[in-house]
């Protein structure tokens, strides 16, 4: 478990026993100490009235700064509840029901959860109802129950920028990047959606700089969100370096910037659950990566965090089938960067049938084609990666390979030494790393050959295969290399992955983006 977060007491002076409400004269009133007969938990009201904005009210700027663009619990707010409520009465704060119920179907207003199995009915000491309900899905961000109000800012927000060009970057873009960069900028200006389909190693981060610059100069709020925490940690310093005068909030579970409001936010998608109508521009990196695609609540979080009028930029090297189709049918605005920044073509995977390798493994043997491939790399001292469909198979192979070379290491998601092993590979102390799909993206070694054993496995989807192939030839010094799929029966995904790579190379050639 992560370290306990600091929790603020909502009521430092008075003892709070309960949280029930009444609506009278079209205004919501909380009851915190006693509970009059007519008081109810917030979710049992049909609608929560919103008083009109009193423009003469002198609101608390600190509260505004803390809360705007957010949806927080009262427990998260280091302000007395009387003060919060006074802001509500003057139209500066919005209360929403933490949970909505329609025909016995509950929905968590914060994370969008509708899964019955993730709601728990319990006797609640706050609202004093025998049957209160809470959501387990987003519990780790503080419990939302049927008696919880979600608190947002509804007063005015300053949106001004005196910095016409916050971007401080002297690099140049490749022609492919330039084209995409222009489209991103346009989408930001026009508040539209755009998919940037950029091959692995295209240099997609630089493509965002001009667009972010345009947004920031117009006083817009920008968020780059990604499912992967390593991407957040890598992007944070890079963007701080090119936007040196702009405050940048870097958010992930347990990060210190949790309450920092900044024009530029970089966050794991999970953190967006605390935002509400906050951003003018959301850039979603690695849209196809787990867990974004598998988790509805993350997609809900992204929707909730956008302003009603806003732009949305999706970035990926490997859009899924549906998105690819939408692109080709003209249903989705997109731009491709079909070539890498170093202008060499993408290495194309070779397919090699290797028989029933699982059966061979049972006899502690590797298919000879695989052994040969590995031996050749060990002899010529070319570093290589070998991917496996699961940990069990990998564990079986490691002792066999160590007979060839004792320094070979293996990594998987739960490996406590994962970071240090990857570093050893970078430092060339390890000649070969065997791995599960955990290294399929995000990791760059400058000069490696890559193979998959068991490429026919279901876990190797088209996008996983394209990503794995994308590990080869990343650097300008070593722009090529070998990528081999060892398989026991070619799959549709393998064929599609190779086709996608060939198509990108072809397109890049046509557009003159390949120089070699």
């Amino acid at each position, binding site marked *: *478990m992560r370290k*306990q977060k600091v*929790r603020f*007491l909502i009521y430092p002076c008075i*003892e*709070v*026993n*309960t*949280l029930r409400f009444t609506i009278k004269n079209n205004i919501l009133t909380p009851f915190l100490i006693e509970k009059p007969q007519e008081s109810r938990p917030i979710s049992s009201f049909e609608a929560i009235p919103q008083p009109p904005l009193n423009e003469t009210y002198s609101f608390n700027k600190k509260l505004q700064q803390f809360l705007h663009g957010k949806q927080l619990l009262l*427990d998260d707010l280091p302000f007395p509840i009387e003060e919060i409520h006074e802001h509500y009465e003057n139209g500066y704060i919005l209360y929403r029901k933490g949970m909505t119920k329609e025909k016995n179907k509950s929905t968590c207003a914060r994370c969008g959860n509708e899964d019955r*199995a993730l709601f*728990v009915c*319990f*006797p*609640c*000491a*706050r609202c004093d109802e025998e049957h*209160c309900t*809470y959501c*387990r899905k987003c*519990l*780790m961000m503080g*419990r939302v*129950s049927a008696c919880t109000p979600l608190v947002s800012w509804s007063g005015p927000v300053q949106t001004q920028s005196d910095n016409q060009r916050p971007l401080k970057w002297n690099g140049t873009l490749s022609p492919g990047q330039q084209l995409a960069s222009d489209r991103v900028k346009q989408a930001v200006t026009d508040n539209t959606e755009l998919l940037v389909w950029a091959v692995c190693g295209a240099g997609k981060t630089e493509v965002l700089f001009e667009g972010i610059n345009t947004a920031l100069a117009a006083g817009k709020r920008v968020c780059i969100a990604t499912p992967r925490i390593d991407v957040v940690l890598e992007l944070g310093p890079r963007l701080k370096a090119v936007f040196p005068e702009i405050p940048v909030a870097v958010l992930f579970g347990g990060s210190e910037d949790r309450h920092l409001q900044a024009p530029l936010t970089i966050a794991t998608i999970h953190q967006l659950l605390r935002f509400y109508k906050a951003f003018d521009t959301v850039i979603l990196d690695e849209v196809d990566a787990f867990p974004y695609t598998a988790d509805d609540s993350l997609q809900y979080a992204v929707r909730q965090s956008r302003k009603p009028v806003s732009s949305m930029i999706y970035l990926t090297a490997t859009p899924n089938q549906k998105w690819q189709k939408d692109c080709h049918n003209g249903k989705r605005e997109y731009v491709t960067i079909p070539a890498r920044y170093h202008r060499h073509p993408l290495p194309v995977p070779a397919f090699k049938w290797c028989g029933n390798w699982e059966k061979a493994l049972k006899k502690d043997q590797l298919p000879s084609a695989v052994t040969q491939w590995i031996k050749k790399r060990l002899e010529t001292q070319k570093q290589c990666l070998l991917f496996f469909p699961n940990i069990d198979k990998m564990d079986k192979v490691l002792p066999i390979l160590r007979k060839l070379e004792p320094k070979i290491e293996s990594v998987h998601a739960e490996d406590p030494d994962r970071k240090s092993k990857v570093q050893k590979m970078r430092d060339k102390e390890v000649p070969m790393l065997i791995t599960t799909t955990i290294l399929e993206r995000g990791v760059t070694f400058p000069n490696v050959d890559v193979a998959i054993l068991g490429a026919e496995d279901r876990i190797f989807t088209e996008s996983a295969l394209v990503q794995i192939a994308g590990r080869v030839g990343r650097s300008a010094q070593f722009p090529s290399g070998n990528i081999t799929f060892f398989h026991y029966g070619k799959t549709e995904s393998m064929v599609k992955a190779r086709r996608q790579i060939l198509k990108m190379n072809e397109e890049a050639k046509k557009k003159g983006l390949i120089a070699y």
Partner: protein
Amino acid sequence: MLIKCLICHQEISPVVTWSSLWSKPEENDLCKKCSEKLNFIEGEACEKCSRPFSGLDPRYRTGNLCHDCTRWNEDPEWGSSLERNQSLFLYDDFLKEAIARYKFRGDYILARAFSPFIKSKLQTLDFDLLVPIPLSSERLYERGFNQSAALIREAGFTAAEMLKRTHAEKQSKKARNERIHLQQVFQRIADHDAENKKIILIDDIYTTGSTLYHAAKILKEAGAASVCSLTIAR
């Protein structure tokens, strides 16, 4: 229907055996992996507080008692207040995480991960009343439920709320000495009669025993015939 493990959220695949086909399915909300991670307290242990002797430095053991219990017993004021504590599981990292999620995050349903074990333990014990260790009203508001009372309720019993907390500070932030020499932290609520009752106190964790000794003392003073305690973790 698919059942998911309360702790790890993985699907639980029911084990089908001949007897399970014919008998009423047993309630089981934990997957096999998580159940196995719960470490039952077994083997030699302190006969007063259930502290396991394995792994304990022999210097801290006197006969069948651990050092702490010997000290409690030597104290004429406290020694006889709590008769005995029993605990179900070792308070290891796995349980620490589960209990933290249960009470600090407020995941009420985890009471059901433990309640079957509490229930079967209680079936072997003789008692008149089950008394949960109370929370301060501040803490009760924060958590939304009392974790000890929830264990009793989910095990299918009725909690006898006989105590009230007068002191609000968090126990876990204090050193042992501080805890033991605190002023009385509980008050009795007069609703239930303790006279000649056999009482079992329920709490989530036994650490120094201070909380339970304090509660036991008050109940003894109110005329309870005996006060024992049962906790999830030790």
